[in-house]
């Protein structure tokens, strides 16, 4: 049962499935024998050694992944100059707990966090609305030039903000929207990804359901809000979470759609907070921690949605 990597994944799985059945069935008559057959009884000692090794490897990997975060915390809490003169050790030096207060006070972290929240909420709400409506048109309505409209939506995948950056900056400048919430949000009120994801959810709704609700006198709007959206809750939820992630983390656009410090979102502000005075370097590190807190909360409370949203592209295509 050697496998050929060039065979398509579909064949691969079918073939392996068949093989699995062929092999497993004759050899393992009863399901509860399965475990015994696969894992021959080991001695307690060997088992313990294997488990311990696994834990050691996992702990080592965790230390590597967490080390940068630890260094950030360390540098944020330590007094910058004393930490350096202490020879940059792996433990904090003369902890300054008020660093977060100072970042909010001196470095106007509060304003940039607030602006980030406003920009993110505007983008997420608009993206959900526009995506749901467009997805509904593609999934449930027939109309002339549907194919062309779909191609126009797909085509925008070739035009991320990085490609159109300089032209968009000029457009926003001409519209006198530099340094404004509209300027920071306009190019992101729609996203092809959102349209695709939600359309996919809508396409999973049985056609019969639409016909049945039509017989019940449901118009399209009522069907959209009473049936289609509730049935696609999971996908819309995942999309909201990843839209938040994307909007909150933006850097390139807010960096060039603003030229005044007061209009910097928190991600852009991170570039400069505390960088002017070596004695205040810890303010920048504290700001980076604060800027990650909303996403940390998202990760804790919406883990399932994040995983589903991030893997949607990998599994569904």
């Amino acid at each position, binding site marked *: *049962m050697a*496998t050929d*990597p060039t065979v*398509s*994944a*579909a064949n*691969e*799985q079918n073939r392996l*499935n068949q093989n*699995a059945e062929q092999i*497993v069935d004759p*050899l393992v008559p009863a399901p509860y024998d399965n475990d015994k057959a696969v894992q021959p009884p080991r001695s307690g000692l060997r088992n313990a050694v294997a488990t311990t090794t*696994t834990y050691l490897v*996992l702990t080592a*990997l965790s230390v590597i*992944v*967490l080390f940068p975060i630890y*260094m950030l915390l360390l540098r944020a809490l330590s007094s910058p100059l004393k930490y*350096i003169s202490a020879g940059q050790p792996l433990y904090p030096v003369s902890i300054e707990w008020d660093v977060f207060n100072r970042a909010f006070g001196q470095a106007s972290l509060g304003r940039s966090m607030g602006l980030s929240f406003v920009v993110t909420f505007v983008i997420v709400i608009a993206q959900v609305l*526009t995506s749901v*409506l*467009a997805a509904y*048109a593609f999934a449930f*309505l027939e109309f002339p030039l549907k194919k062309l*409209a779909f191609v*126009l939506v797909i085509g925008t*995948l070739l*035009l*991320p903000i*990085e490609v*159109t*950056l*300089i*032209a*968009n900056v*000029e*457009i926003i400048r001409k519209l006198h929207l530099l340094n404004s919430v509209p300027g920071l949000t*306009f190019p992101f*009120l729609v996203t092809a990804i959102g349209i695709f994801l939600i359309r996919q959810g809508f396409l999973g709704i049985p056609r019969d359901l639409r016909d049945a609700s039509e017989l019940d006198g449901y118009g399209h709007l009522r069907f959209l809000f009473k049936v289609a959206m509730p049935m696609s809750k999971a996908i819309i939820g995942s999309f909201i979470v990843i839209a938040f992630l994307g909007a*909150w983390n933006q*850097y*390139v656009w807010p*960096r060039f759609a603003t030229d005044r410090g007061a209009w910097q979102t928190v*991600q852009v502000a*991170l*570039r400069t907070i505390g960088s002017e005075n070596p004695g205040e370097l810890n303010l*920048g*590190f504290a700001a*980076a921690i604060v*800027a*990650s807190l909303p*996403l940390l909360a998202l990760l804790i409370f919406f883990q399932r949605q*994040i995983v589903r949203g*991030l*893997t949607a*592209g*990998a*599994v*569904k*295509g």
Partner: protein
Amino acid sequence: MNTSPLNPTEHAQGESAQVTTVSAPAKAQTRRFGNKVRDAGLAYLFLLPALIIFGVFAYYPLYRLFWYATHTQSRFRNKPASYVGLEQLKASLTSNDFISGLTHSGLYMLYTVPLGLLLGVMLAVSTHRRLKGIKIFQTIFSSTVASSVAVASVVFITLVNPEIGYFKNVPWLSLRNPTSALFAVSLSSVWQNLGLTFIVVLAALQTVPDELIEAATLDGYGAIRRFWRITVPLISPALLFLGIVLVVSALQAFAQIEILTGGGPSGATETLLFKIADPRGIRPLGVRASYSLGLFVLTAIVAGAQYSIMSKRVHYGD
């Protein structure tokens, strides 16, 4: 297909007045026609916001890029631009400046994509088992999802900054050395993307049926052969997806460059997007527009690869 000769208004009147005289199938047909027109109107209404935004902030800018690329602009904005045809575009895309940007972006890809995939798979495989407390490790490994590019860059200031970084004296992580600077910056991306790669690979691993692995074990496959012959082919769609995501994010590297090196030393970390965005404003708009069109072509190639891969495994999904 089954359009009625009646127009919608006549149809509405007809329905109310002659409801008894119209035969059932004909009535259904006229209603369907009315619905069709209404549906199309509704569809356009639903698509309007999306198409307006895409038109103004995606397609029109593309046209403007062509316009800027075929015009030279005076440094003073009040002077009119002059048309130069494809001259400027050609000159820009063959310039040493563009080639060096392309090289740096290519290197960035080389540094981040294979290493990122490898580490993601390693972390995912090592936590894909039933073990007490494995959830804790899974949470730790997915934690970098909460960091943005900017945050990851600030985090790496504490590690590789030439003055205050913990590893400032490690030569192969030096931001002062033109040959190591880009690699040191790229590690911030590798670290930042770990959470994403870990999550996606772990989710893919969880779809590999246990019976397959068990069957292979019975067949005398060792752990390594099992991994390469069974696990890797089955998670290959996820790996391809991640490969493309990582390639695209390498192509769009900017914040980490600006925050960690500012493009230096002596331009050694100026990626394509860094030259396009040009934070110090040293390149004319026409040149940057030409570079943008270069980036557009690269993006199209990657998206084309993505599309062909995705459409090949349509039957596989679900």
